[in-house]
């Protein structure tokens, strides 16, 4: 079993690799984590994701901007690609699958990709439809995959209005599906008016929302385990 000291050392390395967008160190520390027998889940959440949370803070403080965010995401993926195959079962207590994409007419997918990353981290099955996605495709894919969550992204006012129709269609076909919308022009007001379950106004908020979602899923899991134990 790995000592607490060693564990902290590796976690710190993973965290800093993400913050300093250092892909090489992220890979190296991930391999080391596996070698010394650190629980891969622990390395992902307490290392990589913890680094990404700090990145979110730096973004909010306007010390980091989108280029840095993208490079940090690359560093996270560099580690995740090594760790993920060794995760036995990422049981979050909730079945997670999500359909995600940028709506038709919009070719901006950076925000969408950041959110997708967080779902990847959380072990969700992600059906990524990409960008400029015809509106019907979201409904079709949700039906086909029976996903719990659909995430729609639009970066421009001129494409945002398309989301309204997708929400209506999705809710008509499956009232239980949760819908999250995001992108620069989106507001809480619009999300409520159009019947979306959640919204994120920029990449950072999307990141925070996704992290919150994952944290609450983790909490659910812990509660379930506590119940099992008692």
């Amino acid at each position, binding site marked *: 079993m790995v000592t607490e000291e060693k564990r902290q050392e590796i976690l710190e390395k993973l965290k800093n690799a993400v913050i300093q967008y250092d892909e090489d160190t992220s890979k190296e520390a991930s391999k080391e984590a596996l070698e010394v027998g650190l629980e891969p889940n622990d390395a992902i959440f307490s290392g990589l994701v913890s680094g990404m949370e700090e990145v979110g803070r730096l973004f909010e403080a306007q010390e980091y901007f*989108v280029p840095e965010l993208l490079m940090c995401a690359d560093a996270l993926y560099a580690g995740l690609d090594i760790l993920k195959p060794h995760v036995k079962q990422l049981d979050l207590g909730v079945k997670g699958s999500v359909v995600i994409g940028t709506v038709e007419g919009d070719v901006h997918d950076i925000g969408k990709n950041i959110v997708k990353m967080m779902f990847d981290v959380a072990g969700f099955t992600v059906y990524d439809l990409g960008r400029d996605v015809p509106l019907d495709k979201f409904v079709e894919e949700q039906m086909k995959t029976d996903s719990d969550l659909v995430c729609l992204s639009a970066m421009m006012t001129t494409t945002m209005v398309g989301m309204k129709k997708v929400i209506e269609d999705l809710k008509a076909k499956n009232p239980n599906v949760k819908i999250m919308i995001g992108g620069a022009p989106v507001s809480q007001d619009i999300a409520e008016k159009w019947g979306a379950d959640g919204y994120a106004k920029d990449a950072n908020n999307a990141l925070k929302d996704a992290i919150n979602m994952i944290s609450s899923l983790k909490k659910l899991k812990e509660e379930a385990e506590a119940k099992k134990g008692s």
Partner: protein
Amino acid sequence: MSDITPKQRVLRLFAGERTDRPPCFSGMGNVTTEGLKKFGYKFAALHSNAKMMSDAAASTYKLFGFECGVVPFDLCVEAEALGCEINVYAHLEDILYPTIKKKLIHTEDEMDIRIPSDLAVRGRIPLIKETIGLIKADIGNEVAVGTYVLGPFTLAGQIMELNDLLKLSFKKPDKIGKLLDMLAAAIIIVAKEYEKAGADYITVREMGATSDVLSPRVFKNLILPYLKKIFAELKTNTVLHICGKTNDIAVSMVESGARAISVDQKNDVAETRKKIGNDSLLFGNYDPYNVLVSGTPEKVRETIRKCMDDGVSAVWPGCDIWPTVPPENINAMMDEVKKYRR
């Protein structure tokens, strides 16, 4: 007081003269579904037809008294002329703005591109020039006729993957600088053609360089030099538009040499006005969707009054006006501006 035409008011503003009130116009698209209905035009068909584009652009003035005529309606003209393929979504009834379907640069190795020597006659550039002529003949005596080009960084985001552009701006700024220099030269060629066609003002739309995406430092070091190059070459009235967060770059925007700067609803205009002084022209900054389309007429009036009280030189939207704007809202806006006195 209103014995001057909207055109005279706009031109006097650009010339630095006093005007009775701020003009209410835009440098970006402002076609409305009401205008399209009047002619029975489909949005997707406008982009490749000079007569239709001109009719649609003039209709916002004719129907609502909006004080300009602006073409084109999409952001793909320069990228298309440089060799990208575009999608106008002709198969859809809904209004969607054209996008780039196929980029010019797919990897970092392909960044060494050249400007085609016949750029001025490629793609839809001759069509836009023709349209500027048509709209001038139609309403050019009454209102100022405007057009726009993209800024070099935003154009770079059209011709290459945005992901790569952003990361390379950080990792290899020299390489991006070289590309921006070349694109600035291309933009100058296109803008000069529009000058020749008689545009009264040209807006350079550099929304990719917003502080929501890039740090003010990167804006100043990497992008501003090429914007300066562009504005130094243009003789007509110019506007630099950047949306999103712009308070920390507003002074740099003025330094670009643009005659006026344009900001959106995320800018604290009262603060910006203090920073840039009273002599600089500042256009803005109402939300063209959440206020103009989905707000009530009262909300529109309140917002427009605040823009003017905060110190805008012209009442001007934060982006393209979304076509489904309700007539009562645009009428409320025009009325509020017209009764305003400095």
